[in-house]
C-alpha cells in the first residue's frame, strides 16, 4: 500500500519530487553535468553567489537545460489538468486537451506561417500556432453552441455530446487544411520539420517561454483547485450537478475556456504532445481516486514528472539525436498505463 503512504506524505513529497526531476532534467543530456555544478550555477544565478564554474557548463545549465525542464514541467501539468477537467465535465473517458480542435488549429496556424509564409516573417511560429488554436477553438464552441441549442431541452448531457462532436468536426476541418497547405507548398525538408513540430519539440525553448508557461500552468492549477468541488459535483452528470447548486453553464464555460487557453499556450510553444492529457488523469484516478481535491494536484505533479522524464529520454535514447517528445510519451506511456490498468482492475 505504498500509494496510501504516498498520498499522506504527498504534501511535502510533491515539491521534493519535482525538484529532483528538474535537477535530473538539467544534469542528464549529451554531456552529463554533476549535480554539485548545477547547484553552484543555481546559487550563482538565484542568490548571486560567486562559485567558480565553467562558463560553458553554466550556459548549458541555465540557458538550455533548466529552462527546458521548467517548460516541460509546465506543459505536463497543463495538459494533465486540461485532461482532468474535460474528462470530468464532458463525462467522457476519451476526452483530452486536444478535443476542442486546439492541436489541429495550432498545427494549421504553424504550417500557415512556416510553409505558406503567412504574416510575411512578422509572425512567429508560436504566434501563428496560438492564433490557429484560438480560431479552431472559437469555431468548435460556436458549432457546439448551435448544435446543443438545436437539440433543445437544454440538457447538459446533450451539450456535452455536442461539444465532443463539434470538436471532431472542427479538428477534421483544420487537419485537412494543414494537409492541404503541406501538400500544396511544402518541400521535403519543411514536411519533416512540420512532422517534428507536430509530435512535440522542446529544443527551441528558452526562459522567455518559461516566463509564459509558468504563470499559465500555475493559473490553470489554481482554477482547478478552486473549482474542485464543482468538478466533483459533475460525477453523475450535469443535471445532478445543477441540482447540487452548481451553475453549470458559467462554471463549465469558465473551466473549458481556461483549459483551452492554457493548452493553446503550451501547444503553440512546443507542439502537440500527445498522450499526457489523455492518460495521466486516468492513471491518477487509479492511484488516488476520482475526488478532485486529490486528483488535481496528483495529475499536475504526475504530468510534470512524466514530461520531464520523457524529455530526458528523448535526448539520450538515441545518441546524438533528439527524438520528438511525443514519440517518447506514447512509447513509454502506453505500456506504463497498461500496467496500471491491469493492476488497478485486479485490486478491486
Amino acid at each position, binding site marked *: 500500500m505504498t500509494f496510501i503512504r504516498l498520498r499522506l506524505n504527498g504534501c511535502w513529497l510533491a515539491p521534493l519530487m519535482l525538484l529532483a526531476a528538474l535537477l535530473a532534467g538539467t544534469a542528464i543530456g549529451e554531456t552529463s553535468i554533476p549535480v554539485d555544478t548545477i547547484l553552484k550555477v543555481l546559487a550563482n544565478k538565484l542568490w548571486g553567489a560567486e562559485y567558480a564554474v565553467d562558463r560553458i557548463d553554466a550556459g548549458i545549465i541555465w540557458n538550455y537545460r533548466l529552462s527546458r525542464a521548467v517548460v516541460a514541467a509546465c506543459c505536463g501539468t497543463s495538459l494533465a489538468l486540461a485532461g482532468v477537467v474535460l474528462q470530468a465535465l464532458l*463525462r467522457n*473517458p476519451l476526452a483530452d486537451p486536444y478535443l476542442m480542435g486546439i492541436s489541429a488549429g495550432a498545427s494549421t496556424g504553424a504550417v500557415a506561417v512556416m510553409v505558406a509564409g503567412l504574416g510575411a516573417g512578422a509572425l512567429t511560429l508560436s504566434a501563428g500556432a496560438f492564433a490557429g488554436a484560438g480560431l479552431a477553438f472559437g469555431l468548435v464552441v460556436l458549432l457546439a453552441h448551435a448544435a446543443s441549442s438545436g437539440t*433543445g*431541452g*437544454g*440538457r447538459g448531457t446533450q451539450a456535452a455530446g455536442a461539444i465532443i462532436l463539434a470538436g471532431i468536426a472542427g479538428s477534421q476541418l483544420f487537419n485537412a487544411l494543414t494537409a492541404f497547405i503541406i501538400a500544396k507548398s511544402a518541400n521535403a525538408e519543411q514536411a519533416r520539420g512540420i512532422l517534428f513540430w507536430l509530435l512535440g519539440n522542446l529544443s527551441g525553448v528558452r526562459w522567455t517561454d518559461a516566463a509564459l508557461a509558468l504563470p499559465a500552468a500555475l493559473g490553470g492549477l489554481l482554477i482547478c*483547485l*478552486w*473549482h*474542485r*468541488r*464543482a468538478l*466533483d*459535483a459533475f*460525477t*453523475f*452528470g450535469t*443535471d*445532478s450537478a*445543477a*441540482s*447540487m*447548486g*452548481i*451553475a*453549470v453553464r458559467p462554471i463549465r464555460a469558465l473551466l473549458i475556456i481556461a483549459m483551452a487557453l492554457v493548452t493553446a499556450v503550451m501547444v503553440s510553444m512546443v507542439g502537440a504532445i500527445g498522450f499526457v492529457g489523455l492518460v495521466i488523469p486516468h492513471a491518477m*484516478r*487509479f492511484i488516488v*481516486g*476520482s*475526488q478532485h481535491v486529490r486528483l488535481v494536484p496528483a495529475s499536475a505533479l504526475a504530468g510534470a514528472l512524466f514530461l520531464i522524464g520523457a524529455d530526458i529520454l528523448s535526448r539520450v535514447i538515441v545518441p546524438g539525436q533528439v527524438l520528438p517528445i511525443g514519440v517518447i510519451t506514447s512509447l513509454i506511456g502506453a505500456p506504463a498505463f497498461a500496467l496500471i490498468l491491469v493492476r488497478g482492475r485486479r485490486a*478491486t
Partner: protein
Amino acid sequence: MNLSAENLGWRVHGHTLLENVSLEVAPGQTFGLIGPNGSGKTTLLRLLAGLSKPKAGRVLLDGKSLARMRQRHIAQSIALVEQQAETTDRIQVRQVVALGRTPFLSALRSWTEEDDAIVDQALVDVDMANMTGRLWHTLSGGERQRVHIARALAQQPKILLLDEPTNHLDIRHQLSILELVRQLPITVIITLHDLNQAMACDRLGIMDGGQLVAAGKPQAVLTSERLQQTFGVQAELLTTANGERLMRFYHA
C-alpha cells in the same frame, strides 16, 4: 417552505411536453405525481427543481421566482433524485453522499465534523450505513437509488423531489423508502407508478398529455372515471380487513 408553479409550459422541437400547469404544495406535505409514461411528470419535476427555466410561467419558492435565484441557493432548499444518474468513476458510497454537501461548501469553507454527522445520518436513514466503503459500480440498482436518496438528504432540503424512486427497489426497500419519505418533516414531491402506493400521499396530482388534469386528496382524484380516462384501465375497489382501500386493475 412553499413551492408553487404558475402556468408552466415547456416545449422541445415544437412538441409541447408541458402546458399550463399550476400547482401549490404546502409545507410538510407529501405530494404524489402520477400519470402514464410521457405525460410530463419528469419534465415538471425538472422545472420545479430549477434545472431548466420554463418556456412559459414560473416556479415560486416562498413567493420568489426560481429563475431569479442562484443555483446554489436553490440547492440549499430543494434536492432532486433523478430517475437515472450513473457514473463510471471509481467512487465510494460515502463520497457520493458527501456530494450532497456541495451547496454548503466553497473553495474556502471547508468540510467540517458537522458535515460528517449529516452524511452519517443520511446513510443511516436509507439503511446503507454498513456499505459506506463500497464502490459505486459494485452496487445493485436498488442500492444505487438509496445512495442517491441519501445524497439528496445530505443536502438537508426543505423540499425533496423524487423521480420514481422506487423503480429499481425490491418490495421491502420500496416500502421502507416510502415510509421514510412520508415521515420526513419536509415537503416531498414524488412521481410514482404504483397507484396503490400513491394512495398514501397527502395529495395527488394526475398528469396526462402534459397537463395537470386533477389535483387533490387521493380518494377524491383517483376515481374510476379518471383511471379509465387517463390510464385506460378499469379498477375494482377492495377493502381490507383493517379498513384500508385497495385497487385491483384490469384491462378496460
